């Protein structure tokens, strides 16, 4: 429990993007080329000239962006340690320094008419680099803010699911139904219920140990099994899962809840939910599959909201490095998630929230 607390944050502070993330790298390249395109449009005098301008700008820009990305990737741990404000400053300084370096190294390529004022060239180079770098960082900050709402949302949704009358009153009724005959079991059920509520009310955090999420999911399943009895079973397959692996909080439990609520519960014979968690090299794979009624056409609205939230959080935390897939058959439903294997850093995590995506 202590470990959980230590990686918990009150709210997500602004953080520099993870420059080692493939998605972030792609976004930076795409956006910087988009700016190049705009400049080419402004400078162009015709179609052919536009292409020429475009090629010229990209040829000059790419060495700078690529080397900057490399540098920022290398400096990443140091940048994170600085905190957001100073990190931004350091990123700007290093990028413009690098741009100047490439500019002078490029020689004639970058300065075709050497008679221009050197002082002006330096100023232009630095201000353009700073502008570009700040613009991109601002974009990442806004994007992270937009998506981090989904994290708060995840907790709200889980809380809402707990107080959904169908769950709450039926569970209380079920506990009352066993309290005379099996008082011990009733005790455990109430304890599980308290834990599930506590988790839903906990402060927003992003990553937890896989084991914690599994435990929470098992408590949830135990409560549903109390009501549904033999109709609900779960086949857990946790293969080669390291103890220090972290996954987004409330990722597995809502998936199981969907499987129960939209699958098993409407089947008269019930069914078995297949849960598979596996480490595969540098990635973690999570798969939740369940049988579902054939006739019951379109998926529920609640279902869509929960899945949308999970998608948004994966995108916030891992960008393009996480994938998410829903496979819907005639009588089964399966969600498959792949995300990078993030290790818990035992001594690093107290410092700031920035350590949270350290690999």
């Amino acid at each position: 429990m202590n470990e959980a607390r230590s990686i918990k944050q009150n709210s997500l502070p602004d953080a520099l993007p993870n420059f080692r993330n493939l998605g972030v790298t792609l976004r930076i390249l795409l956006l910087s080329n988009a700016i190049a395109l705009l400049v080419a449009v402004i400078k162009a005098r015709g179609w052919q000239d536009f292409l020429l301008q475009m090629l010229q700008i990209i040829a000059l820009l790419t060495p700078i962006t690529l080397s900057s990305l490399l540098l920022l990737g290398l400096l990443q741990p140091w940048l994170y340690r600085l905190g957001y404000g100073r990190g931004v400053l350091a990123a700007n300084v290093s990028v413009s320094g690098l741009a100047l370096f490439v500019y002078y190294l490029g020689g004639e390529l970058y300065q075709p008419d050497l008679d221009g004022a050197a002082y002006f060239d330096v100023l232009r180079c630095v201000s353009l680099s700073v502008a570009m770098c700040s613009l991109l960082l601002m974009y990442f900050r806004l994007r992270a803010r937009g998506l981090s709402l989904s994290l708060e949302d995840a907790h709200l949704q889980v809380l809402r699911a707990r107080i959904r009358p169908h769950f709450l009153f039926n569970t209380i009724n079920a506990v009352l139904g066993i309290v005379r005959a099996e008082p011990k079991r009733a005790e455990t059920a109430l304890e599980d219920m308290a834990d599930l509520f506590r988790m839903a009310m906990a402060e927003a955090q992003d990553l937890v140990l896989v084991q914690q999420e599994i435990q929470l999911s098992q408590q949830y399943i135990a409560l549903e099994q109390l009501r549904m009895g033999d109709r609900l079973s779960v086949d857990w397959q946790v293969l080669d899962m390291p103890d220090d692996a972290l996954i987004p909080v409330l990722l597995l439990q809502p998936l199981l809840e969907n499987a129960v609520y939209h699958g098993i519960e409407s089947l008269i014979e019930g069914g078995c939910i297949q849960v598979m968690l596996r480490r595969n090299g540098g990635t973690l794979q999570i798969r939740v599959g369940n049988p579902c009624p054939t006739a019951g056409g379109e998926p529920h609205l609640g279902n869509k909201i929960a899945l949308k939230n999970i998608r948004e959080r994966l995108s916030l935390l891992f960008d393009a490095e996480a994938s998410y897939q829903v496979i819907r058959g005639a009588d089964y439903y399966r969600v498959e998630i792949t995300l990078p294997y993030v290790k818990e850093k035992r001594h690093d995590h107290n410092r700031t929230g920035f350590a949270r995506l350290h690999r």
Partner: protein
Amino acid sequence: MTTIELALRVFIVDDETPARNRLRELLDDCNEQLPLVVVGEAANGQEALDKLAETPADVVLLDIRMPQMDGIELARHLCKLLRPPVFIFTTAYDAYAIKAFELHAIDYLLKPIRLGRLFDALSRARNAVPVQTEVLRELLPEARKHLSIHERGKIHLIPIEAVLFMRAELKYITVRTAEREYLIEESLTALEKEFATRFVRIHRNCLVAKDAIVGFERGGEEGESGWQVRLKGLDERMAISRRQQYIVKEFS
């Protein structure tokens, strides 16, 4: 009537075992002041129909939300029993149903169920009049999932997906599935309205399942040269009346 009160026969329908336990315990508690006997319990609609056909009950405690068939649909089928029982519905929360129950003064219990409320409902049940099928129809806004027929003391369920066509004949309606025919006593107009998404009217007296249509043919007897419908697994061709000819275009 008589001063000796017969024990009230109670039957429990709920898909959740602990919920049935809870009701049995509470009924046991009621037993001290109100003579009653639990004659059986069921976890789903089909089981309830089978058991109640054999052991009649005065009161059925019915959960609304169940897989396969909800409690209100089950109540509609149970109305076909020779002596329909009084229903007391149980639910954790179903805003729509609760409003309707209150409107029609039908008893319901909210889960978690309280002893006092159960006792009151049971005391009233002795003098209650069984609900009318029409009222139950209003309670359930969606279409039923099954049709039911009363045959040799038992109630049979016909899943609505299995029905190929329904044709009005004299007093009854013939319901045809791939296997056999059944006779039910309902109005074709009401059936058409209830299952509008599944069936299409091809004739004044006939509804056919849209899914079962495999083709249309020209032809007919007695000089009528209108269209006919061919249905999956049936040799019989169903005539389309002149007024309904337009559906041929809609389907092909």
